[in-house]
């Protein structure tokens, strides 16, 4: 072992019997490090992490701070209004409409993507040449920016010249007005989300499937368990934590959706697809009521945070159960 350059933990106490090599100290003796430096070292080690955390939290804190004012383009020197922005928001019917649309969108998109994604993963898990090709093709939608995907779908869903109605014409559905009705616009937006993000769920689920231990399945096969029994009692419980991870990511992301809906419907018709992010964007950027716009974002953050807390807690429990099952 090389000679230490600093005293180790638990070494010298009292008046400092150690010296340092070279210089004025006794040759060969360990370095003498002042006690305050030793005490400071653990804290210095966390400084980068602290700076990083500060870098993340500072804009957030600043945003939070701005919500306490009535800052807008027409009022660059704002007054302190306390929680008035939040109260204004919750008193608006528009906010509750947006909250409902946001929830419907997030729940709908996440549910469909989870079911489809797990289904696709189960199909791809059977190793075949086609499966290996499809695995690679599957991730293509993920490589397309959501806003581009939405514009692409907007063109395809155009009732008179879009390819979707053209293909549906032979079965008498060529006149569907995809985004012209409130329900149609919401469902069309969810459909685009599903198209873009189902591969994400499928990939996570597939990775989960491939990491499951073989022995329980072999034992079930020896016992003559059927496919449905094996799926319900073994595959699903053990895969559940992976599925939940996908659900958490997708649900959080769907609550914060902006690009797909804005590119597809701009929030219309009427207010039918104005989710909270779009409302915040309109307030802050289009109408330049900055404090109100940021307040919308803080409310959305709180919703996302609470939802993630609940889901993560559920995930922890599911992981424990899956460990027991395997």
């Amino acid at each position, binding site marked *: 072992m090389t000679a230490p350059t600093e005293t180790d933990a638990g070494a010298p106490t009292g008046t400092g019997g150690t010296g340092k090599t070279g210089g004025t100290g006794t040759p060969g003796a360990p370095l003498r490090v002042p006690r305050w430096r030793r*005490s400071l070292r653990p804290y210095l080690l966390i400084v980068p992490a602290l700076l990083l955390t*500060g870098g993340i939290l500072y804009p957030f804190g*600043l945003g939070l*701070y701005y919500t306490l*004012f009535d*800052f807008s383009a027409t009022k660059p020197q*704002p007054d302190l209004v306390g929680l008035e922005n939040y109260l204004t928001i919750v008193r608006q019917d528009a906010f509750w409409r947006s909250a409902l649309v946001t929830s419907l969108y997030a729940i709908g998109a996440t549910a469909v993507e989870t079911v489809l994604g797990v289904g696709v993963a189960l199909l791809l898990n059977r190793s075949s040449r086609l499966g290996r090709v499809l695995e690679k093709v599957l991730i293509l939608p993920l490589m397309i920016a959501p806003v581009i995907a939405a514009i692409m779908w907007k063109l395809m869903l*155009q009732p008179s010249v879009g390819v979707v109605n053209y293909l549906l014409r032979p079965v008498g559905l060529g006149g569907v007005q995809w985004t*012209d009705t409130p329900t149609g616009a919401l469902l069309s937006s969810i459909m685009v989300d599903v198209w873009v993000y189902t591969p994400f769920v499928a990939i996570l689920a597939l990775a989960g499937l491939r990491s499951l231990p073989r022995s329980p399945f072999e034992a079930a096969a020896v016992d003559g368990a059927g496919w449905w029994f094996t799926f319900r009692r073994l595959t699903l419980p053990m895969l559940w934590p992976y599925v939940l991870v996908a659900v958490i990511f997708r649900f959080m992301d769907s609550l914060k959706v902006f690009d797909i809906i804005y590119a597809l419907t701009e929030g219309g*018709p009427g207010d039918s697809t104005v989710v909270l992010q779009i409302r915040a964007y309109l307030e802050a950027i289009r109408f330049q009521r900055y404090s109100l716009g940021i307040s919308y974002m803080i409310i959305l953050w709180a919703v996302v945070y609470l939802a993630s807390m609940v889901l993560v807690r559920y995930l922890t429990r599911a992981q424990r159960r899956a460990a027991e099952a395997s």
Partner: protein
Amino acid sequence: MDTMDRRRFLGIMGASAAALGAAPALSACGTGFGGGSSSGGGSAADEVTGAFDWKRAQGKTIKALLNKHPYSDALIADLKSFSDKTGIKVEYDVFPEDNYFDKLTVDLSSGRASYDVFMLGAYMVWQYGPPGWLEDLGPWMRNTAATAGDWDQADFFPNLLQADQWSLKYGTPLGQGGQYALPWGWETNVVAYNTEVFAKLGLKPAETFDELIEMAATIKQKAPGAGFDGMYGVAVRGSRSWATIHPGFMTMYSRHGLKDFVMSGGNFKPAMNDPKAVDFTRKWADMIKNGGAPSWTSYTWYQCSSDLGARKAAMLFDADSAAYFQAIKGASPASGKIAFHPGPKGPDGSLATNMWVWSLGMNAKSKNKTAAWLFLQWATGKEHLRKAAIEGNHIDPVRKSISQDAAYKDKMKAIPGFLETFETVVDQTKIQFTPQTQFFDATTSWAAALQEVYGGKDAKGVLDGLAKDLTPKVAG
């Protein structure tokens, strides 16, 4: 020697964090919130003295923010003339219209001078003017040392110049106060129609709104059987955007003598739910349902214009330029078969028309104001605008002299009815909206309400709701 324990360390860190946290608080008391008017009473124009000289800012570079548009294409094509004349280099960024105003708004609100000059609409003066983001160009225009003698302010159509003038005060009309931008290219909202389908079906342009409604429905029914597959009657904008309200809708609304807001007790009161306005809105929505585009709620001017060019729409009630770009030779399947008409008159014969004015403005925070002003006067000057009108597609002249120019008239005669329509409506074309800072909120909500009426909701209920929502927002 003192030991630094955890508590003490956290204390120090806490103090540092508090100091950091105080920064925005302190800055909020000063200029931390960004905006703030730069006008301290005087104008940078006052610093320009002596004889006028195009080379005054030689060697400078200015940055321009431009919207992707045939007008800006013509400007970019002629930039070398400006640089040769002044020795000023122009760098520019071009953005499509969907993102353009967001980019401009964010940039101006940041308080930086990323762009010295930019394109804007006259409505934007109501939003960008009050926070002090726009340079008042009045002092520059009045300063003979800064402005060329032949720039000729009197040559502008007065209604266009007035569109960019505002006092920035609540409740005051346009045409007073500072000149916050210069008219550069404009668009009047009229009807363009496909002459081929009109001839085949024996139609003449509608002279009243009821005729237009009936004609749009008739075309949608009969045109596909007459060899115009998938053709519908009239294209108008329908997306959930302020831009849906200002062209055809606001023009026809104004021709009915209707207002967006009326002044009552010192406050603006929304007038979109006036019984006549409700009736008009219902009819407009019915016109679209029976004779408009499928998927209307996503229609911007791009779709409207391309449908006219693709022979999908028999009529377009929108900016004349949106139809012109489809009408020019070789531009679209319908080119050579598009004609212009002022559109239906109001019940009392009114041809009041709303307009869009593409203008050029100067960033109040610009560090190159003299160079920027030289650019603005060149870009709005006779020489460039004449060239842009004749050689480019800068087709609605903001200057009287160009509208009367023989070469311009010769060029535009190729499009049936264009010049006649222009001359019929030019004096009755103005901004029909009430200037107020919540313009974009009001018109976006109005477009959403129009979509709801189109979707089958009761017009009165929807417009009453709109008025209720807007009342506190537009109060003084």
